[in-house]
């Protein structure tokens, strides 16, 4: 019976361990895989372009040729776009319309008597007659415009032409009315009526035609934005006009490029009206939508020449760890965050370790058990249980607002706050370490005429050092990963790596805060997935490295002692 119990217990324990290991792997492996993706990935030429132009990287000749070949492959696409937007027929048609407009106005000027007769009429009848007169006068113009709308000319170019015609019609009507006013002394209301009604038919038509092509144009714009997102702007002049880096470059990573192709080019959002007349957004396959137009050719070209326009190649971007970030981490690396985490961690350790060791020495060597000491111990215990966000608020309220250790957030304030957070852990670890030193060492040292302090310095501390260091380093790991205390005291989401001299006055980006920030507050969170995972992996790596350092140091020091 006992045997069975023993065996089942062993099996259960092993199963639990396996489960834990599996969970850990299941948790770590995706992070490691995705995090490494920030450094090793399939890059497009845009990646090299960015590095060359913003970080002064020396790009090897081979890559430069790659960029040139990609640009050459893109040239036909840019040409298609420009010819679509500036259809030749459009300019000519615009001219034709303008000519007809001028002719109509000229004939109306020549035919003054009719107009005078109509304007002589009163009230409602005048407006009626005027409208009819205008309708007949603009008949040719309207016919021509309607014909254009049905022609091969791209809606984009047509819209431009119609828009300019609209403004010209309005200004010409105004001019015509004031001219008539001068010769015929019309007065305010008649002049106004003339101005309003004389171009009413063509203006109405323009409005109607533009409304018809506007939906199609909006769809085209949507598609063009997608192309921009994928490839960046077409030339330097266009590039210099753009403010944001993300608009100046296309996709730097092949996986993101494929996603862009699928989501922003092959499929687009269009606006249509539903049965009740309300405007709704709908997702359509763009090839279907632009069937049998020049735009379809563009989409085909992009699809067929996708690889030659982007030239995917595998790359190892070590700069991810050592470069500054650009445009909210969409480009560049995470060096300032690593630096900030380093400053905060070591800063807090430098503050907390001496205090913690001193307190531990007091507790374990000097303090006589009594009410005051148990109260102090309780305080340390309570401090360990205080939620970290409270430490953050304390840092803001006390260190920054009351003590004014710095103007606003600073690394110093953050380091002090973190130091307070890890202090109880350090005190406890050090106290345990000191208590573990055999009493016989104390007796031996004191027996040889050492004072208490001398005995502590020469025998007890050296003997306790390995365990104390372990405790301190593990606390450092905790400080490195804490987010809440630095939100109010030290962290900014954007900033460059600080110089040592700035840590007393300047806030810094730091890994834990920026991980939160980039995952939940970032405006394009889905475009920086690799950075999110890269940061997480870096932070985990840092904490693990600290823990391994603790283990290694402990082993080394203990070997030395033995």
């Amino acid at each position, binding site marked *: 019976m006992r045997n069975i119990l023993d065996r089942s217990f062993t099996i259960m324990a092993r199963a639990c361990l396996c489960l834990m290991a599996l969970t850990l792997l299941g948790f770590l492996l995706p992070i490691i895989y995705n995090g490494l993706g920030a450094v090793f990935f399939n890059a497009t030429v845009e990646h090299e372009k960015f590095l060359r132009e913003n970080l002064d990287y020396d790009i090897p000749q081979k890559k430069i040729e790659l960029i040139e070949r990609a640009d050459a492959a893109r040239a036909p696409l840019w040409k298609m776009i420009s010819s679509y937007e500036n259809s030749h027929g459009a300019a000519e048609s615009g001219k034709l319309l303008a000519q007809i407009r001028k002719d109509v106005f000229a004939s109306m000027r020549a035919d003054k008597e009719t107009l005078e007769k109509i304007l002589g009429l009163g009230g409602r009848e005048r407006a009626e007659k005027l409208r009819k007169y205008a309708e007949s006068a603009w008949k040719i113009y309207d016919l021509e415009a309607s014909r254009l709308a049905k022609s091969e000319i791209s809606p984009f170019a047509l819209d431009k032409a119609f828009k300019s015609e609209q403004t010209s019609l309005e200004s010409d009507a105004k001019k015509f009315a004031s001219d008539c006013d001068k010769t015929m002394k019309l007065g305010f209301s008649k002049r106004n009526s003339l101005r309003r009604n004389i171009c009413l038919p063509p203006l109405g038509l323009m409005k109607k035609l533009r409304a018809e092509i506007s939906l199609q144009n909006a769809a085209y714009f949507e598609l063009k934005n997608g192309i921009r997102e994928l490839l960046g702007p077409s030339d330097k002049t266009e590039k210099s006009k753009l403010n944001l880096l993300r608009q100046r470059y296309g996709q730097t990573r092949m996986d993101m490029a494929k996603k862009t192709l699928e989501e922003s080019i092959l499929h687009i959002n269009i606006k249509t009206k539903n049965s009740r007349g309300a405007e709704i957004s709908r997702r359509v396959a763009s090839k279907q939508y632009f069937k049998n137009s020049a735009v379809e050719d563009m989409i085909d070209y992009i699809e067929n020449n996708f690889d030659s326009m982007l030239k995917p190649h595998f790359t190892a971007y070590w700069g991810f760890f050592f470069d500054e970030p650009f445009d909210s981490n969409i480009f560049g690396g995470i060096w300032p965050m690593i630096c900030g985490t380093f400053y905060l961690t070591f800063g807090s350790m430098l503050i907390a370790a001496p205090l913690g060791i001193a307190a531990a020495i007091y507790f374990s060597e000097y303090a006589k058990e009594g009410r005051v000491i148990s109260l102090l111990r309780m305080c340390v215990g309570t401090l360990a249980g205080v939620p970290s966000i409270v430490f953050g608020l304390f840092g803001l309220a006390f260190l920054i607002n009351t003590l004014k250790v710095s103007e606003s957030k600073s690394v110093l304030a953050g380091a002090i706050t973190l130091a307070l957070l890890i202090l109880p852990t350090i005190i406890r670890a050090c106290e345990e370490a000191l208590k573990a030193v055999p009493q016989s060492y104390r007796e*031996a040292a004191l*027996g040889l005429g050492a004072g208490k302090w001398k005995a502590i310095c020469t025998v007890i501390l050296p003997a306790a050092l390995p365990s104390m260091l372990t405790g301190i380093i593990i606390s450092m790991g905790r400080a490195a990963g804490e987010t809440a205390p630095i939100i109010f005291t030290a962290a900014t989401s954007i900033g460059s790596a600080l110089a040592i001299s700035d840590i007393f006055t300047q806030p810094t980006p730091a890994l834990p805060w920026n991980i939160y920030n980039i995952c939940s507050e970032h405006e394009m969170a889905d475009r920086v997935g690799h950075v999110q995972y890269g940061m997480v992996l870096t932070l985990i790596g840092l904490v693990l490295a600290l823990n391994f350092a603790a283990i290694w140091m402990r082993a080394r020091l203990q070997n030395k002692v033995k």
Partner: protein
Amino acid sequence: MEMSPNYHPPKEFAISAKDFSVFYGSFHAVKNVNMDFERGKVTAIIGPSGCGKSTFLRCINRMNDLVENCRTEGLLAFDGIDIYHKRLDVAELRRRIGMVFQRPNPFPKSIYENVAYGVRLKGVRKKAILDEIVENSLRRAALWDEVKDRLSSNALGMSGGQQQRLCIARALAIKPCVLLMDEPCSALDPKSTARIEDLIAELSGEYTIAIVTHNMQQAARVSDNTAFFYEGRLVEFGTTSQIFTNPKNKATNDYITGRFG
């Protein structure tokens, strides 16, 4: 160090106790002990477990200060100086009254550093002087020949007997007047015990030695005088030959003949 104002023991006694009592809280551990340790002689303290002999020994260099709520009454004098005087420099006292503990307790340092530790505390910095003192002390403790080639290796790597002799060498290095030994051989095998006993015989004459032991034969072998403690009281005190051959007290007789304890 200040002289005790009202007690001047004869010069032939290194340590004198007069109506000396020790309390742990309310427990009266050592009761009104009056005894003198002869200068240059070995004094053994025997008695059953818990009779207060170790406590008494540890009071001589104030090692019991480490124990909380330990309190003393009466007088304990070293060379006419009140050991429990308020303004006494305890570190200085312990330098004059060395101690060897029940279990060997070398520091986790090299053999050399262990011996040099107390000397360094006295402010000696010169390597040549330190070397000489270390060698002399190790020779006195009959350890030099065994360890002279590995002075820089860790002391914790030595055998128990060697460690105990190292502790004696360490105590000797600071040139004390008195050496207190609290069951120095209880953790050692017979061979190591014999070596320590030889060492004690060698050191007597030069040092005043007080040794607490459970081993009656040992007390008989190494000591000049013997004190028998029982239930916190000093029952009998006299020369070793007298105590072991002709005890005056019945309890002493019972103890040394092995009827109890």
